């Protein structure tokens, strides 16, 4: 208790909460419609800006759209690539959903993913045994690695109060160095040079029988185990976050830690485990990339999947169900970007377009909240009658 405070002003949701989202229990109201309308407007602006960018970099917008379409969803092969890209994005996003619900904002998925890939690679290359067993252990180890990495942040936060955003971010840069070191040390993971070439900074390739299976053959639709895993996780998590006691407690903790404590929740345990779990999902994504597509540990293996996955969660407002289509969209953009070279437009333009899209989805709730707050402030000035008739219950918070 510090100096006495006057009667509490009605608490506001912090604006950041509108970005992170994470309260799956609210019905759509006027706010939701306003947000939807603003979103449509913002996406239109983003598409317009993207077209403008393409035009001034001497490209033709229609060709770019065509290339993106061809590369992503024009045919089965495109879809296959889109889904392969979407799986790790979705896994990372699911983890971010958990942490965001609990009110701990993990932004270090890129690093957790790298560590996961590294640990998974170590297990896959060193552990002897039947394929299914080694693959399972490697994936679990990858998740454990990512979880341990975010667990460092959790431990620092709950024992010493170190800001989670800062520590998870900075640990990412350490993770990059750790992986660099691992693939540069012959005693650890650097490849055993074959023939006369010098050993490059990457690990040996994971043997064929340890790679994740996929169903279907090119040029038909192929669906990898990673995709199935991510989808399963999304369904389970959607149910758990929306309907389980654990999900309810996470929401409570994220929305009001004090009330949560009063209700018997130990923040360090629940919030800490949420942070570890979110890191574990990122680590699992690393394992899936390693065993599903890249097959060897390289410093660039993360390929921004960590950052982009976080963006998927942001756009999906921390809802696992929404994260699925968003991850597919982002996966499609990634797949399409590889076809851009033919149009003469630099492929990093896709990153710019992607960023514009993220902004178009992330900004509207905040705008809507600001707008709503302004409307409310105007109407809050009107003191609601002391005894509103029972037929018209007070809709807005009555100023006290």
């Amino acid at each position: 208790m510090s100096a006495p405070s006057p009667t509490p002003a009605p608490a506001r949701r912090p604006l950041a909460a509108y970005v992170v989202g994470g309260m799956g229990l609210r019905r759509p109201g006027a706010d939701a419609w306003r947000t939807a309308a603003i979103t449509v407007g913002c996406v239109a602006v983003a598409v317009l800006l993207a077209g403008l960018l393409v035009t001034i970099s001497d490209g033709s917008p229609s060709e770019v759209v065509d290339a993106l379409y061809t590369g992503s969803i024009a045919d089965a092969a495109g879809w296959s690539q889109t889904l392969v890209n979407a799986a790790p994005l979705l896994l990372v996003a699911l983890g971010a959903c958990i942490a965001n619900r609990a009110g701990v904002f993990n932004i270090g998925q890129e690093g957790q993913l790298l560590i996961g890939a590294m640990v998974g690679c170590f297990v896959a290359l060193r552990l002897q045994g039947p394929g299914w067993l080694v693959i399972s252990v490697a994936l679990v180890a990858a998740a454990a690695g990512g979880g341990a990495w975010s667990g460092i942040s959790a431990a620092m936060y709950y024992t010493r109060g170190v800001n989670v955003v800062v520590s998870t971010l900075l640990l990412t840069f350490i993770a990059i160095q750790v992986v660099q070191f691992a693939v540069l040390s012959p005693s650890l993971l650097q490849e055993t040079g074959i023939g006369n070439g010098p050993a490059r900074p990457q690990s040996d390739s994971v043997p064929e029988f340890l790679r994740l299976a996929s169903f279907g053959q090119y040029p038909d639709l192929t669906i990898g185990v990673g995709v199935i895993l991510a989808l399963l996780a999304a369904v389970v998590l959607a149910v758990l976050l929306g309907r389980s006691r654990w999900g309810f407690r996470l929401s409570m903790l994220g929305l009001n830690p004090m009330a949560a404590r009063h209700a018997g929740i130990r923040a360090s345990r629940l919030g800490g485990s949420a942070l570890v779990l979110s890191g574990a999902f990122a680590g699992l994504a690393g394992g899936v990339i390693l065993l599903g597509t890249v097959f060897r540990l390289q410093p660039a293996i993360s390929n921004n999947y960590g950052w982009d996955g976080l963006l998927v969660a942001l756009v999906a407002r921390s809802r696992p169900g929404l994260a699925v289509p968003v991850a597919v969209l982002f996966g499609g953009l990634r797949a399409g970007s590889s076809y851009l070279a033919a149009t003469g437009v630099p492929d990093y333009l896709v990153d710019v377009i992607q960023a514009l899209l993220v902004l178009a989805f992330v900004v509207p709730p905040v705008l809507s909240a600001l707008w709503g707050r302004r409307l409310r402030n105007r109407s809050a000035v009107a003191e609601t009658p002391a005894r509103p008739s029972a037929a018209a219950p007070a809709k807005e918070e009555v100023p006290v």
Partner: protein
Amino acid sequence: MSHDRARTDGPVPALELRGISKRYGPVVACDAVDLTVQRGEVHGLLGENGAGKSTLMKVLMGLVQADAGDVHRDGVAVDVRTPQQAAEHGLGMVHQHFSLIEPLTVWENVALGEPGRIDRDAICADVEAVGARYGLTIEPTATVERLSAGERQRVELIKALRRDPKVLVLDEPTSVLTIAESAALFEVLRTSVAAEGRGVILISHKLAEITAATDVVSVLRRGRLAFHCRTADTSAPELARQMVGRDVSLRAEGAALGLVVTDDPAKHLTPVLQGGLDAVPAEPPAPEAPADVPGTAALALHGLCVAGPDGRILLDSLDLEVATGEIVALYGVEGNGQATLGDLLSGLMAPDTGEVRVDGRAVSLDRPGALHEAGVGVIPEDRHRSGVVLDLSVADNLVMTDLRRFSGRFLMRRAQIRAQAEELVERFAIRTPSVDAPLRTLSGGNQQRVVLARELSANPTVLVAAQPTHGLDVGAIEDMYARLREAAAAGVAVLLISTELEEVMALASRIAVISSGRITGVLDVADASPQRLGMLVGGEAA
């Protein structure tokens, strides 16, 4: 309205509001309100929550544009569209919720919002000069977060007075002050008014203050000017009736309204301390209260010590017992450890030493939720902070402390939650569009009912109610009082933590007084007089 035409003739009024109307959609906040403030006059503005007081003042301060009506200063019509214009026209206001920046110093807060170059020394000198002139001594280099509520208000007052306002508006200035601080404040208002011919508008819903400190009083009811009169010509019961629009019993509602009838309104608030309360028939103590049955202490606090992070002693070996079916009030001035005790009994913190026993069993205070499981229900002082989750639904808020009861192995039992919520909404008359509505959309009184309903639905042994009526309007306050009495009658040990003397006298059978984190005395309500309580509050033995 015949009153408002009967303006005092004579000098040109310092401020005149004519026919101010403001509507928000279907809600008429102000309906052709006239208000005249003479120079050197303290004008009381009374009204319940939502009567239109704040809207009227916001119009005056340029925070809100009126739909109709105009503002005259010294007989000249002025245009007040922004707070800056209001300041130029010599209108100053001290808001109920202080607008101070806590980490900054006093002089920095005073200088805030002023155009031009900031001269630290000049402002510090100003603060001291203004302070000396009005008896508002304050150290200009002190940091605001270390100041008490009374001192903070001084800062606000100095800030307003330094700009030399011709009309000063004070919105509920005493809601956070002690009786002595309130008396001092009114003394300052008198001197500043009498000596300098400023007009003062004093907004309050406490009748005792209005009758003690004002010259003229206007009552707003549902946006209309309901009553206007010289204070000397009216009485507190009359004002109460005008405010509520019906007769008010001097018992529960009297306490709710802060209705402490004083014989001599010319005296400031001191009469409250001089037996003024005798005029109010104090609520007889709950007859079923077995205050002196030994060995039945449902709640026992033993030697609780808590030191703040800065080493300040917040609770100093506090001992207190509450028996089954008894309402014990913990009375004292805000900031003497009540908030710490409230946090402790809400399970938000653990004491350095000491123990809490419920029904004779010690509760391990380190574990979140342990107190709740032991049967302690809490209505926290700041419900938004620890009592509710605003973004969850009413139903979720009603069950959130007993999740295990409402969930299976993994999943929540939605149907069961709904049923429980609907029953509680019915039983506690919670006004909500549906149990799925976010709690945020409920009014303050209904949010408080949600907290009360949840805590009582767990059949607690002990109910701790910390400032349970803070910020509620009269109807909600009456309801809260009835519920607390009901709970005690049903055998719950109720600990009422309150800073409102009237509330304590109306509800409790025993009153424990807290000062600087320790109990300075426990009195049966029959033995408690305002004087004795006042001495104990001041930390002296009575």
